[in-house]
């Protein structure tokens, strides 16, 4: 594979950043103490990491010598992952709250309303 240097650097940066994000998200999933804290790692960091890797793949298969035209396969996967990650996170939170209703935090205290406001 022969790519221009700038593209090579960009691909390496995207792949490195993506792998780092995925690793950080998974480490958060393994490390944090509570389910609702653990949910942050995969739904944000790991999804971003996958997005970086998919962009790198898109660039590589578009500018690789011997292929004509843009490669839009990855756009499909990226769109799907970015659409479904919040939905599954929301459903998981609802499931966790149904399993353990005591985990729901107390509603904030009603403040006394100032007169005239």
């Amino acid at each position, binding site marked *: *594979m022969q*790519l221009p240097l700038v593209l*090579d*650097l960009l*691909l*390496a940066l995207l*792949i*490195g950043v*993506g*792998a*780092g994000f*995925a*690793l950080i*998200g*998974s*480490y958060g*999933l*393994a490390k944090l103490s509570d*389910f609702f804290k*653990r*949910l942050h*790692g*995969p739904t944000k960091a*790991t*999804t971003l*990491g*996958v997005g970086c*890797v*998919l962009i*790198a*793949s898109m660039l*590589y*298969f578009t500018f*690789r010598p011997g292929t004509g035209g843009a*490669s839009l*396969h*990855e756009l*499909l*996967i990226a769109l*799907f*992952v970015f659409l*479904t*990650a919040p*939905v*599954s996170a929301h*459903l*998981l939170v*609802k*499931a*966790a709250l*149904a*399993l*353990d209703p005591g985990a729901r935090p107390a509603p904030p205290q009603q403040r006394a309303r100032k007169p005239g406001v």
Partner: protein
Amino acid sequence: MIVATVLPFAAGAFALALLLNLYRLLRGPGLADRILALDTLYINSLALLVLLGIRFGTAVYFEAALVIAALGFVGTVVLAKFVRHGDIVE
């Protein structure tokens, strides 16, 4: 070729991420933790497949990654609904 040097390290990072997910899947105290770990496992393996596609220069792996993305989402939704309602189809 910088990409070829970076790719093995990235694949190693993803493999480590998969191991961390597996730890949470086996260990996780609650049912929701396990479902979340399974969902993350799907997403990480999808990214690993895309990396393999770059490494070997073939587009064959995309279809596998797409199928994993679709089935992973459906599996997570079904498991979460089953935990919540005790039934999949309402």
